[in-house]
């Protein structure tokens, strides 16, 4: 019999529901997506459930559809840093992760904002670095003009390297605070950071934060994105929810780590996932079906269709058949989100075939094609399923995306978390103060191994991580 490895511990994070059709704003229990109390409720629930971190996405331009502001989903969100800093006051252990774009922010400013969050939270900051080359978003930012598409990952790497150089500017012994001798700090030698896109000269303004570097998250799935994650990220936020697909992605990304002198445990893979619970399996599936219909309203179904067809389809009946006209070639009718249709004719043909075979209306087809990974069942079933994904290396955990703001996580924390704990796969208390502790990640400047969440020491890892 093969030697059994210790049970992997599940990492969970909570995504604040964002501006997309998954958020069911029509539900009577749906609250404000902007009032601070909503953020407080979700963050406190996540902390009550002993989650690793709370995750906040970012928007830098409102989405448009057919040249007008998209009005069918939640619109509007606050500033990432401001909300995360404010949430520090109402939580004690929860990690606070924010998406911040590397294209429209400057390294010095970013480095100080993240260092401030890490100091003010006692080591709970995380940064989901995303890139954008989009002139559409760029229209809100004209300090330095637009960025050539091919340069966006170059810039992302350089921004991360520059922020790390700045965070490293104050060696550990810089602060002296000797009142008698009148020495507050040793002199700080200015940073000289030079790269293809940046020339930065001068001292940084803060000591290193408690985590050394904030936890680095990466969300892209392209080959470049995977390579970026393997080189620099601590957490990867993948979209590969389905088991076999998840396992392939997991292997691929973890295999890349060795190239950068990193261990397989140095990068945690956390796909995004939804969940729907019920007292019985049948009830959960019924609820899930009802939620899908609330997510894909008749108007949303037509808007999705228009993304593929590239033309106004408002005259079509959402409960009727797909249009018999052909899609317009290469018309990007929705801006501000990832393009849905790269080859519209092929997608239209596939959709027609599927609709014909399964007798689906427009709305039913969109419901079927926009479904994403979610766990549906009783709390026990959902716990067992999540555990199966983690134990079989399809993931290290999940970033849960509730469909309701702000109470969408309550039921999960009350009912699924105890089941995960009874399986022996989830913590029953926080064991350390920082997000790096929760995730079992090394401190980038500390050669002594960190304790992971099972309490076992990690060995064979060397001090400073390359940057």
């Amino acid at each position, binding site marked *: 019999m093969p030697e059994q490895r210790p049970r992997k511990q599940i990492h969970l994070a909570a995504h604040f529901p964002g501006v997309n059709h998954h958020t069911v*704003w*029509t539900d009577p229990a749906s609250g404000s997506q902007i*009032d*601070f109390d909503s953020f*407080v409720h979700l963050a406190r629930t996540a902390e009550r459930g002993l989650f690793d971190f709370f995750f906040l996405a970012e928007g*830098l*331009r*409102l989405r448009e559809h057919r040249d*007008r*502001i998209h*009005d069918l989903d939640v*619109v*509007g*969100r*606050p*500033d990432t*840093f*401001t*909300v995360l*800093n*404010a949430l*520090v*006051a*109402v939580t004690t252990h929860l990690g606070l992760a924010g998406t911040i774009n590397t294209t*429209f*922010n*400057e390294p*010095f*400013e970013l480095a*100080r*904002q993240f260092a*401030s*969050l890490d*100091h*003010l939270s*006692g080591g709970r900051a995380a940064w989901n670095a995303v890139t954008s080359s989009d002139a559409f978003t760029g*229209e*809100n*930012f*004209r*300090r*330095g003009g637009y960025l050539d598409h091919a340069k966006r990952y170059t810039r992302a790497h350089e921004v991360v390297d520059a922020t790390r150089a700045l965070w490293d500017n104050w060696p550990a012994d810089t602060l002296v*605070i000797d*009142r008698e001798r*009148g020495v*507050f*700090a040793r002199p*700080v030698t200015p940073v000289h950071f030079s790269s293809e896109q*940046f020339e*930065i*000269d*001068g*001292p940084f*303004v*803060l*000591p290193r934060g408690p985590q050394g570097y904030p936890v680095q998250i990466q969300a892209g799935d392209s080959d470049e994105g995977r390579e970026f994650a393997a080189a620099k990220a601590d957490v990867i936020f993948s979209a590969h929810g389905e088991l076999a697909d998840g396992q392939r992605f997991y292997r691929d990304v973890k295999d890349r780590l060795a190239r950068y002198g990193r261990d397989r445990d140095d990068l945690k893979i956390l796909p995004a996932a939804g969940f729907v619970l019920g007292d019985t399996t049948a009830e959960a599936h019924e609820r899930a079906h009802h939620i899908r219909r609330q997510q894909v*309203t*008749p*108007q*949303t179904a037509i808007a999705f269709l228009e993304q593929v067809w590239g033309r106004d389809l408002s005259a079509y009946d959402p409960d009727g058949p797909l249009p018999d006209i052909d899609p317009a070639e290469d018309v990007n009718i929705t801006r501000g989100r990832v393009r849905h249709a790269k080859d519209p004719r092929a997608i239209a043909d596939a959709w027609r075939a599927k609709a014909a075979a399964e007798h689906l209306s427009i709305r039913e087809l969109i419901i079927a094609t926009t479904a994403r990974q979610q766990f549906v069942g009783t709390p026990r079933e959902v716990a067992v399923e999540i555990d199966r994904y983690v134990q079989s290396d399809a993931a290290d955990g999940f970033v849960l995306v509730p469909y309701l703001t702000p109470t969408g996580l309550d039921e999960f924390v009350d009912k699924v978390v105890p089941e995960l704990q009874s399986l022996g796969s989830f913590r029953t208390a926080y064991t350390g103060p920082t997000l790096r502790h929760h995730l079992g990640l090394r401190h980038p400047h500390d050669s002594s191994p960190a304790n992971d969440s099972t309490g076992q020491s990690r060995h064979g890892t060397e001090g400073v991580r390359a940057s």
Partner: protein
Amino acid sequence: MPPTSPLLLGLELAGAGAHPASWRRADSRAEDLFTAGYWVDALRAAEDAGIDLAFLPDSFTLQTAGAIGRLDAVAIAARAAAVTGRIGLIPQASVTHTEPFHLSKAIASLDFATKGRAGWEVTVSAGEAALFGRKPEQDGRSRWQEADEAVEVVTRLWDSWEDDAEIRDQATGRFIDRDKLHYIDFTGAHFSVKGPSITPRPPQGQPPIAVRAADPHSVRLAVHRADLIRIAAPDLAKAAATRSELRAALAAAGRDPNRVRVLLDIDIHLAATVDAAAAEVAQLEDWLATPAPATVFHIGTPAELRDILREVENECAADGVVLRPLALPAALRHLPALAPTLRERLGLPRPANRYARA
């Protein structure tokens, strides 16, 4: 025109204090300067003492002496939002290197997190261009021209959502009425911004804007755009004259001078007795000599400071003050003695005792 009564009380929280040697005091909490505890305690103490406005100075550059290092001021304000309840939080944020789109949503979000207690002190930054490596160092005129554009962009973004834009209309499936969201389409010499904001209009609509009027460029911006104008003056007569000039300039710019508050900086060090205060300041100066203050200052007891505040009011020297403690934790202990009484808040004098001999 008399100042509005009572005087607005502002407090500037600059690290260990405005004096660069203040961290050497035994009570300075210098070890805590990079922790939330230091700032939250200070802001709560200020709030409990009846301070109306907390100003949080900021800069990207390292101080040249004393306690060096600086947390982001907007971050400190946000960190304190949920643990304070009344005090106005006014972080400084420079517009020279920061995108106005980012600033707009940061201050709007601070306004949401504080439920309507956010402000913004507009500043520009000299000597920080190399830290960003994006554009050459600008002169004062160029920096303040750019600031003028930045304030225009930020305030337009705050208005880019009408208050009732969110409709959640189930019948039509529309979350917002997009006709109540507006592109700002701003194009200036320094940047152009399309809009609308991604953050809805904040609770205050337009969070108050503070500007320190210190040179012709900043005075111009203050007169055209500020709700709070900070001034420094060597004495109250000079302050009154500056206030009058600003009020005339406000009127000339087509603004109602009664809707803009002029706040006078007062550098302070408070102790139980005048001698103790003087001795403590002498110790600070002994550690590190500094130039004489460029504004009104008070080294002495809280009671005397109250007299000065009354004088500021009587002389029409300002509509409020910004107290700048030379040593912050030391000052916080004495602030409660400054809190205005209910009668003062109502603008009523303390009556003489009818039985006491005149």
